[in-house]
């Protein structure tokens, strides 16, 4: 009975050690990648928020969607400059889509 408990204890302890080692390895991998700058992360968050607002108002342009996708892809590669560039385009295109809702209807002036 005791030997069985010891065996189970060893298995649990071994698993914990292995798990910790695995996490450490992942963290090491994560640490080896360049981090996204705070400025780029903020620009990306702003773009995501603008696109979400335009989506909710049903005024989203495809150009905003594709720019956001490019910004997110650049974020995965931690390419700060590209994130900033594409996020700015996404935010601007999303804002223009929403502003378009206030433009006059075209029945009087085609």
């Amino acid at each position: 009975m005791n030997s069985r408990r010891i065996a189970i204890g060893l298995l649990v302890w071994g698993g914990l050690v292995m798990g910790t080692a695995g996490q450490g390895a992942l963290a090491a991998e994560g640490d080896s990648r360049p981090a996204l700058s705070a400025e780029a992360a903020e620009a990306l968050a702003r773009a995501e928020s603008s696109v979400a607002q335009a989506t909710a108002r049903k005024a989203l342009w495809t150009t905003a969607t594709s720019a956001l996708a490019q910004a997110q892809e650049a974020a995965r590669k931690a390419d700060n400059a590209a994130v900033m560039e594409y996020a700015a385009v996404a935010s601007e295109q999303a804002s223009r889509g929403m502003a378009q809702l206030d433009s006059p209807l075209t029945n009087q002036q085609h």
Partner: protein
Amino acid sequence: MKRATWILSCLGMLAFSADAMSVSPEQERLKSVQAVQKKYPDIKFEDYVYGALAFSADAKAQYDNMMAFPPFESEIDKGRALWETPFRNGRHYADCFPGGGKNVAGNYPYYDETMKKVVTFEMALNQCRTKNGEAAYKSSDMNTMGLLTAYARTLSDGMLMNVKVKGDGALAAFESGRRFFYQRRGQLNFSCASCHVGHVGEILRTEYLSMLPGQATHWPAFRGGDYALFTLQRRYSACNQLVRAVPMEIGGEEYNNLEYFHSYLSNGLPLKASVFRK
């Protein structure tokens, strides 16, 4: 200051309401027909159903040849099989519609006062399915709903479009569809009307621009070299994408209201389903 702002806001809303309701659905329809008649007096009203083909004898001849032996006939047959296959309870689609489904599509969309929304023919087909214990099809699925309508709508070939707008709810839905039609969208900043009212009959890239009246009569269509099946709302989605706007949901409220407005403006013109279009 606040009071003045409030009064100005109210006046603004009144002005908007007056503008929105100043044209009745029938006045809107007549206005759109007269605009085409004025610009193209030689094109007969009944030929508006051919859309862009009405501006080109060559394109119309190609259409006539194609329709003599439609290369997409096997697709319509698949739709017929869907229509004729009984539900698990033994009932059929034909049991859900007056006249077994013949000469009904021209009455759609209609505004359902109980549901407080526009009901399209596709929604009626789905209501038939769910009422008989079947799962609804996705309106955007061309392999199910698309094919089903490709046959079901042929049962109304020749019927005149007969959409009605009565009551406040119906008017509001019509107005919502009207606003969609005239609202600029996408990075290219086009409304539906920019092309189909403002530049009817002119050539955009290589294609003539069709006229608004009659546009809702010939659906679904098999388009281009691969004869891809397009329902009217799939076409809306494609048009929105062309102007770089993210399209609305096919079968969603926006497109249903647009179809309501659009179909009303085709009133009096004959339906023909499953046609060829470039």
